[in-house]
């Protein structure tokens, strides 16, 4: 199953390199076609895979560490606080290369705020954290709405940005995100066994020799950093982090060894497909924001799973 899925993924990657506004003949490309393929298409396909994996991975870790099947980059406030920075940067007309940096900055500030709020007596409370995240979300949304209202000239930029997409991809950004993803994945994979135990109640997990609070803190910070980096480059791409971990849990079990891997892989697969669709649905080069497609694809599949395999999702 694992090999089959990897094969499907590789085929999807290769195929989606050939899908887009311009048809490319893979066997004898013209110079322009080759330039498009290598300079734009390939980095973008790989980038969408990396971002999808980042979102899937963060969702998988969030749901477990926060003990909540609804936990993802939205409920923890990471996505919206990153978006806040990007939106303000766009609205104030700061140089565009700064946008991801500022988004990352506010994302980390949001992370720190939520983290501080949810820490009582030195211990992180998952429920408080979700609450703090949701409130963070609301506050950030309010400021974003204000920016939309006040900086009307930037309205369309802001709205398009919030709908998510792969705006400008180059090999440098791709490398950066790939390194962040790899670091986080290896870190989590090395702690897969401990992460599993977080599915137990707190006391049981602790009595098995885990410093629950420290593990939860590390997991939360790294997962949020993943989201902040991803969102700062692509805008808000919803639903990947929420749905993909459930899907892979339902198909491959809850063991984090598997869930980390399959959440990343399925997240990458979903986003590669969604971006291929966003590039090609409208003929002539116009693009559909990719967030719309992930929500549609992911949402419909999720509803199907919810109907057919509900019991394998969550029992709380």
């Amino acid at each position: 199953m694992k090999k089959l899925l990897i094969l499907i993924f590789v085929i999807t990657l290769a195929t989606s390199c050939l899908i887009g506004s311009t048809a490319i003949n893979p066997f004898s490309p013209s110079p322009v076609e080759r330039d498009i393929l290598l300079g734009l298409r390939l980095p973008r396909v790989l980038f969408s895979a990396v971002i999808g994996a980042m979102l899937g991975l963060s969702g998988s870790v969030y749901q477990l560490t926060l003990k909540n099947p609804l936990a993802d980059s939205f409920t923890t406030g990471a996505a919206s606080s990153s978006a806040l920075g990007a939106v303000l940067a766009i609205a104030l007309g700061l140089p565009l290369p700064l946008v991801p940096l500022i988004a990352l900055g506010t994302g980390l500030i949001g992370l720190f705020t939520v983290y501080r709020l949810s820490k009582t007596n030195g211990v992180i409370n998952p429920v408080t954290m979700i609450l703090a995240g949701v409130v963070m979300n609301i506050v950030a949304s309010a400021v974003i709405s204000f920016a939309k209202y006040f900086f009307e000239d930037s309205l369309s930029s802001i709205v398009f940005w919030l709908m998510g997409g792969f705006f400008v991809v180059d090999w440098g950004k791709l490398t950066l995100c790939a390194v962040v993803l790899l670091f986080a994945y290896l870190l989590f994979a090395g702690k897969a066994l401990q992460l599993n135990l977080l599915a137990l109640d707190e006391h049981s997990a602790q009595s098995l020799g885990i410093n629950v609070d420290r593990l939860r803190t590390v997991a939360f910070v790294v997962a949020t950093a993943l989201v902040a980096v991803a969102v700062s480059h692509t805008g808000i791409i919803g639903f990947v982090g929420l749905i993909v971990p459930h899907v892979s849990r339902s198909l491959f079990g809850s063991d984090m060894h598997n869930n980390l891997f399959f959440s990343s892989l399925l997240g990458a697969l979903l986003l590669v497909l969604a971006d291929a669709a966003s590039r090609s649905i409208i003929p002539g080069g116009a693009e559909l924001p990719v967030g719309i497609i992930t929500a549609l694809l992911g949402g419909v599949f999720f509803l199907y799973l919810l109907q057919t395999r509900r019991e394998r999702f969550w029992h709380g």
Partner: protein
Amino acid sequence: MSKLLAALLLLLFSTSSFAAQRIVILAPAAADIIEKLDASEMVVGKTRNVEEFPQAQKVGSHIRPNLELITALDPDLLIISSNKFFSQEMAKKIDAELFYYTPETLEEILQQTSQLAQLIDRKDQALKLIGAQWQKLKRLEPIKNKPKVIYEITEVPLTVAGSKNIIADIIKAAGGIFINTGHRKMLRFNPEAILAQKPNLYIWQVGPMNQAPSPPAERGQYRLLQADYLQVDQLQFSRANTRSFDNVLELNTYFHERQN
């Protein structure tokens, strides 16, 4: 062209009983037309990004007009760009004539100028104004080597002008080929589609919508693009009014110099 002629004929021979005295402009592009029709003193209200008519009160923005302020001004003519931001329901609350200023081509600018002139009883001025614009187009140089042109509205996310944008007609009139991107005013666009279209000229606007774009020539994704880049001012280019005709002339000159 026939539509314009019909409008002009109507302008010459109609006798309108209605003549507006108090105008509120909610379509910023129309401000220039009103000014050129010598009707500045009639303007009692305007949106906040209209620089003309210092005496007029600001009534919010064109996206969020303030109904109370508008009502208080007791206008008899409202110039709006669409019902998107100023709905029929809002219009019903105000006892005033409604004029939609929505030109998508140069011809429609003149046509709507003449219609507007009737409403405010400025027929002579309209004839002169329309004639002057017409004259501008006569000075155009023929362009043999027509450049293919794309027009960037914002860099992030990348959006370009579509065929319903006045830019499209300006480029065509100036002797260029407007790359057909889609039947809208603006579209979210794919950089690789731009490469594939191989434009000869890449116009990028700088202004409130695209505040600090990086010069496209320096952007990695256009490394492979063999095009000239031309920077223009958004406020000068994006509004469909008499400035559009000057823009045609300027672009035409640029095209002409470029081909030599």
